[in-house]
């Protein structure tokens, strides 16, 4: 006959309690370890590198304190890149989100092939960004591109897309919108599914037309989702790199007058192709990070104010 001693029981009990308390951290640890190694460490190292005069070609680095930051903030090309980035962002994102809202509200209705359409609008999102950039770059070629050919055959004078600011911005925004409108539409669609039907019914009973229902019911009810997409779009828009780079055929200069050189392209040019200046590139990267943070918060504030919804 075996009688378990009190000691073994207590040990087992303590071990089980330890297990319950510590195991969750252990399960989550792998992710955080990887994130610390590949996410946090590079960010901190970049901050460290931004304090030095650091060339990719040399092996010696001299400490400069915050001089890299003051250099960057007084560099007109930096502010030009900021201007381009914000401009392309607004030109791309505002129509994109509006269009996505419209498409989403259309997709909530009863349509033939509804699932097919819903899946179809996401297809542009799954194509390779580089492929999109290259193909659209060819479509928008200054002289022999397809779009210019169409314009020419209708009698409209051709547009040299890369020689003007507005035309290059428009072409890049087209690329971005083509890719992300469907994605945002699906997110809005999912949010719209959660709106209770009886709100619409009572509104219809009160005599509200579809447009009024859209603005007074749909949009306020999905306000958190709109805020979410605005933040994601801001973060993505500020980091715009592949589309403008490939639009310029892989040249980070972004046009003879830097018309469409975004911040990310300027950082890339400074660090890897022209100046090989890791210190300045790191300083710019950190400024970009702070910039995105500020802009995202501004975005949220604007939307909270603009889209009046349930008091919260």
């Amino acid at each position: 006959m075996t009688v378990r001693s009190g000691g073994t029981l207590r040990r087992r009990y303590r071990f089980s309690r330890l297990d319950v308390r510590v195991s969750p951290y252990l399960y989550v640890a792998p992710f955080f370890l990887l994130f610390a190694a590949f996410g946090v460490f590079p960010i901190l190292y970049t901050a460290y590198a931004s304090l030095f005069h650091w060339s990719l070609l040399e092996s010696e680095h001299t400490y400069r304190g915050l001089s890299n930051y003051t250099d960057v903030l007084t560099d007109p090309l930096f502010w030009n890149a900021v201007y381009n980035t914000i401009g392309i962002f607004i030109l791309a994102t505002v129509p994109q989100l509006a269009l996505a809202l419209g498409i989403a509200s259309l997709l909530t209705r009863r349509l033939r092939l509804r699932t097919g359409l819903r899946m179809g609008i996401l297809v542009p999102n799954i194509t390779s960004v580089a492929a999109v950039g290259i193909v659209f770059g060819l479509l928008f070629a200054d002289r022999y591109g397809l779009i210019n050919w169409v314009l020419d055959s209708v009698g409209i004078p051709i547009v040299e897309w890369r020689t003007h600011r507005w035309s290059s911005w428009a072409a890049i925004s087209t690329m971005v919108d083509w890719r992300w409108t469907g994605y945002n539409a699906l997110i809005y669609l999912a949010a719209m599914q959660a709106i209770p039907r009886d709100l619409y019914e009572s509104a219809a009973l009160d005599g509200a037309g579809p447009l009024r229902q859209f603005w007074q019911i749909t949009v306020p009810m999905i306000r958190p989702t709109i805020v979410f997409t605005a933040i994601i779009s801001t973060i993505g828009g500020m980091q715009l790199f592949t589309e403008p780079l490939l639009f310029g055929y892989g040249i980070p200069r972004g046009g003879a007058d830097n018309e469409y050189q975004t911040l990310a392209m300027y950082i890339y040019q400074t660090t890897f192709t022209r100046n090989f200046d890791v210190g300045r590139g790191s300083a710019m990267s950190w400024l970009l990070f702070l910039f995105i943070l500020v802009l995202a918060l501004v975005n949220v504030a604007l939307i909270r104010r603009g889209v009046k919804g349930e008091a919260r």
Partner: protein
Amino acid sequence: MSVTSRRWRTLAAAAAVAGLVLGAAACSKDPAKTTNGPITIKVQTFGNFGYGKAVEDWNASHTDIKIDHQKMGELRDFAPQLAQWLAAGAGAGDVVGLEEGQLLGYIKNHQGFLNLFDVGGKELEKTYVSWKWERGLADDGKFLLGLGTDVGGTALCYRRDLFEKAHLPTDREAVAQLIPTWDAYVSVGKQFAAANTGAKWLDSATSIMQPYIMQQGSSWNFDASDKFIGDTNPTVRKAWDLGLQMAAEGLTAKLARWSPDWDAAFKNSAFATVFCPAWMTEGVIKPRAGDGNTGKWDVATMPGGVGNWGGSYLAVPKQTTHPKEAYQVAKYLTSKEGHLAAFKEAAAMPSDVAALDDPAFANSTSAYFNNAPIGKIFAASVKGVKPMVLGSKHQQIWETICEPAMQSAEQGKATSDAAWAKWVGEAKKLVSG
């Protein structure tokens, strides 16, 4: 769920995970363990060096060293990658191709490369054209950074059918006699424009900078002490003015070189002449103009006669684990056989003295270019080349700062003086760090 079945499930799950982990570990290859097999030397080149056949021949005849030739895309994709690999100390090949401008950037900062004198490079001194050899030296001649592959040699490639339309002589000797100087080039260009063939004379104002400056001057943006002189160098300003003058008179097609539009322009017969170094003939013009234009292009001596444009080197990064073997491979690829094979494949003009004299090069003709004797023409163009000082940041300044400014002036987006001031300002900023 009973306790026993839960225990079995847990056991099964644990076994599956363990199996996956062990399987993954078994599948990963250990690269350092090839002690008894052949040593693989990784050769990384950009663009088209023409080494396909040469590598095949080597691999067929050697069992101890195998070459793994990796084509890394265009120069502008490969150059930043290489810089990163050198800085990180890993990732670069055992032998890498360096364009002349790239090499110049590494002359001062050659710590990432192996001094080829340490593996016996001195023996090769007399095999190359002298200025090509000297350009590959760093540290006052004590450090051999690169072995020369091709040299530029420049001529004038022209469209015979468009010349005929404009009632200009089409025979290459006659063309060379018609355009012996740069002034003649401009006046014949005006003649061509007046004939209204639908094509322009030249692809872009910027494309005369390199041929003109390399011929007429002994320096471009930097002097021998690596000081920036691009703004005061009279040759640079002359070339700039000449190009923009031609643009103002409607002689250029105002294209951005090396862009898809420029590629399509060859097919669309948008311009009648282009300055072509040897590597541009078979490697650039032929694929872009296509088979439909075979025989329509021809090659004549360029105005001024003498030209040099581009050319590359092979270097060995210090991080290689097989320095001696890498040197053997680089030596082979830049030997007479390597040069001649590259010439055959990509029309890359040899810098190896023996290869230049070899009939395989000297008597070669190009079927695409109306059977032009390209060996003779390009060899003659290199004969009078004066050694030219280019400087460590030359490539970046010319390609990313000066050329775009000149293009914007050509397209009418800025006046010539404003564009000049812009590029000089940017260049000075780049040089001062």
